[in-house]
């Protein structure tokens, strides 16, 4: 057993790397088509929400015209489909196709999060609740197929109830309800309609729980992407309207049925292997998925720490934390501030974005040892300043660049060389703008290059966005006006776009050289002298 586990885990690691590489490559193509912020693979969770709302709105419309009853159900669905094809028919098709699209985006979302290893540490909560949501989605979808009461519904009702009966939990087999007209009750359709409404409501509640540990969760896709997806589903609805199959006839076996494989794939499996075998298989897969955040166990990085002596209670760290891991509480040390930041260790992923937001994380301070109000123990601001200055001191030439990268982006080592030093951060969002100011305006380097995860796909959700906004002086802490923007280069290409990152860096250095040569020689010399002097002071 242990031997099997020992071989299975490296295989899972290889599969994960291969999948991640595949996602990166496909995302690069989609970036070109949609732009990084409307890339569908970057918006899978939000697209799931969008599909849910389409299903909910179309479902409410259909329910207005739907009748429950053995014969009434089928007849009412036929009326909806044909008598008002332009409204009810389209709504029915949207209802089905958006439900199917929901399965596609949710499964892709799940596989991508696994491939990017984004379910460990505090993220286990979203992952595990997401696994539960899968069951609810399938329950909601399958119950929807019952209420139409056509041949497909007849098969689905029998196969699903046989599958449930395999559990042996019910006194009388549920399948008994569907073996003959005399055993079928119209009230059963009322019950199924209730289930088909209740389960999606529970699903909605579960979706709300799923995003509880994210601040600013992405529940709305960009408008352009939402409109595109809606238009695509509408085109499909008109081109291939969802239709009922022949009415159910319990005196006949439901011959060939057009199966919705997104929802109903387990049913043929239970026909062939038996209900119990499918329960065991699906149960085992579910347990494995639930345990995935801890397979294999990994040591957590030390979480962020608040230094009350430096914390002025400004709440920027709490505002910027992507996981809601920092809360503001009444001051406990008697200092004249209303609040203080408190880190929830169980929610902190040690990304350092809070440090990047802290106004006290300024390397210019010389009054005492550099300590920010909030710090990451693995990389304190004092250590970062020391590393920055040491790395810059070794640089020579007229395009000296310090490249900061996050540990989830392209490998940094290949970028280092003559005139380029590299420093790795947990997340690009950890770098406080005053560090850019220090390195450039005090002449430590000629330019700073920032790289990391792919644009729109920040591993820590908001690191790239906050970095851009701080540098563009749209978000506190702002980069000071005196720092020339042309001496900064931001290129977020992701892990598998190392060549692109290297090209962007080379182009940036070429621009720096050109800019230096275009400056008047005397001014440049004067500035260089002043900067060298500042380096000595710094």
């Amino acid at each position, binding site marked *: 057993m242990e031997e099997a586990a020992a071989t299975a885990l490296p295989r899972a690691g290889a599969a994960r790397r291969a999948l991640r590489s595949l996602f990166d490559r496909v995302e690069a*193509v*989609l970036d*070109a*088509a*949609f*732009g990084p912020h409307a890339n*569908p693979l970057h918006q899978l969770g939000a697209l799931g929400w969008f599909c849910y709302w389409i299903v909910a709105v179309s479902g409410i419309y259909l329910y207005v015209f739907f009748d429950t009853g053995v014969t009434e159900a089928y007849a009412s669905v036929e009326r909806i489909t044909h008598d008002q094809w332009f409204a009810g028919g389209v709504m029915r098709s949207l209802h*089905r*196709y958006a439900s*199917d*699209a929901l399965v*596609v985006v949710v499964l892709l979302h799940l596989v991508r999060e696994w491939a990017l290893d984004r379910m460990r540490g505090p993220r286990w909560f979203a992952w595990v609740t997401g696994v539960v949501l899968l069951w609810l989605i399938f329950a909601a979808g399958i119950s929807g197929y019952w209420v139409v009461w056509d041949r497909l519904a007849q*098969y689905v009702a029998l*196969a699903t109830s*046989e599958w449930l*009966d395999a559990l042996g939990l019910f*006194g*009388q*087999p549920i*399948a*008994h309800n569907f*073996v*003959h007209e*005399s*055993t079928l009750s119209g009230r059963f359709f009322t019950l199924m309609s209730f289930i088909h409404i209740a389960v999606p409501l529970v699903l909605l509640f579960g979706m709300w729980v799923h995003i509880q540990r994210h601040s600013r969760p992405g529940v709305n896709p960009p408008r352009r992407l939402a409109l*595109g*997806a809606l*238009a*695509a*589903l509408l*085109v*499909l609805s008109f*081109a*291939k309207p*969802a239709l009922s199959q022949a009415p159910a006839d*319990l*005196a*006949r*076996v*439901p*011959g*060939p*049925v*057009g*199966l*919705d*494989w*997104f929802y109903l794939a387990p049913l*043929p499996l239970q*026909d062939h292997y038996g209900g119990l075998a499918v329960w065991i298989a699906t149960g085992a897969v579910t347990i494995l998925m639930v345990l995935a955040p801890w397979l294999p166990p990994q040591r957590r990085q030390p979480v962020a720490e608040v230094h009350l002596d430096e914390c002025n209670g400004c709440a920027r760290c709490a505002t910027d934390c992507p996981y809601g891991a920092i809360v503001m509480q009444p001051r406990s040390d008697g200092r004249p501030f209303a609040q203080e930041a408190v880190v929830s260790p169980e929610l902190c992923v040690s990304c350092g974005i809070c440090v990047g937001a802290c106004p006290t994380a300024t390397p210019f301070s010389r009054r005492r040892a550099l300590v920010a109000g909030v710090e990451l123990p693995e990389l304190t601001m004092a250590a970062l300043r020391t590393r920055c200055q040491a790395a810059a001191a070794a640089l020579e030439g007229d395009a000296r660049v310090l490249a900061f990268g996050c540990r989830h982006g392209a490998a940094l080592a290949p970028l280092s060389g003559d005139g380029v030093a590299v420093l790795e951060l947990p997340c690009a969002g950890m770098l406080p703008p005053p560090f850019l100011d220090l390195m450039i305006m005090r002449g430590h380097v000629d330019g700073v290059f920032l790289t990391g995860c792919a644009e729109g796909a920040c591993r820590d959700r908001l690191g790239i966005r906050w970095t851009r906004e701080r540098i563009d002086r749209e978000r506190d802490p702002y980069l000071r006006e005196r720092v020339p923007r042309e001496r900064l280069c931001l290129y977020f290409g992701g892990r598998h776009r190392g060549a692109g990152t290297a090209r962007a860096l080379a182009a940036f250095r070429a621009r720096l050289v050109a800019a230096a040569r275009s400056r008047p020689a005397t001014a440049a010399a004067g500035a260089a002298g002043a900067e060298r002097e500042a380096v000595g002071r710094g």
Partner: protein
Amino acid sequence: MGSVGAGALQVLVYGAFVALVGWLSSAPSYTPVDPSLALLRVSFSHAGERVEPCRRYTPEEIAAMAPNMRRPLDCARERVPLRVQVAVDGVVMLDRVLPPSGLAGDGASTVYARLAVAPGRHRVTARLRDTRRAEGFDHEDDLQVELSAGDSRLLEFRAQAGGFRVL
């Protein structure tokens, strides 16, 4: 990539997505049962006899009971498992022992089974044991059934209706 190229790629992506959704939402079709056969579904629920026969309380025992708890019989809860056997044209196709439901084994036994049968006229022999006897059956019925390909018929047992019947 130019805007035209990006737009074309978007159309391609949306097109591929809806093509996948549209196709797998109803295809490929699936045939759950061989259409050249008929199905006989055996499905019923029936309570077997109690494992221990009920004993009549003596007048002294009844008098000793609280007035609102007095009852004439002392019955253990557990029931015997049923044994059901179905033969089609003399070939036994189902032979099961059905335990009573419930944690105390005091509920009805149930059976649900699908028997695939060739079309045509068949003699269905259904047998049921629902008492404490160790051998043989308490109910046996011979039924003549005419089945066409694709038919689905129900074989059930109802004690009140006289035993087995095919619907």
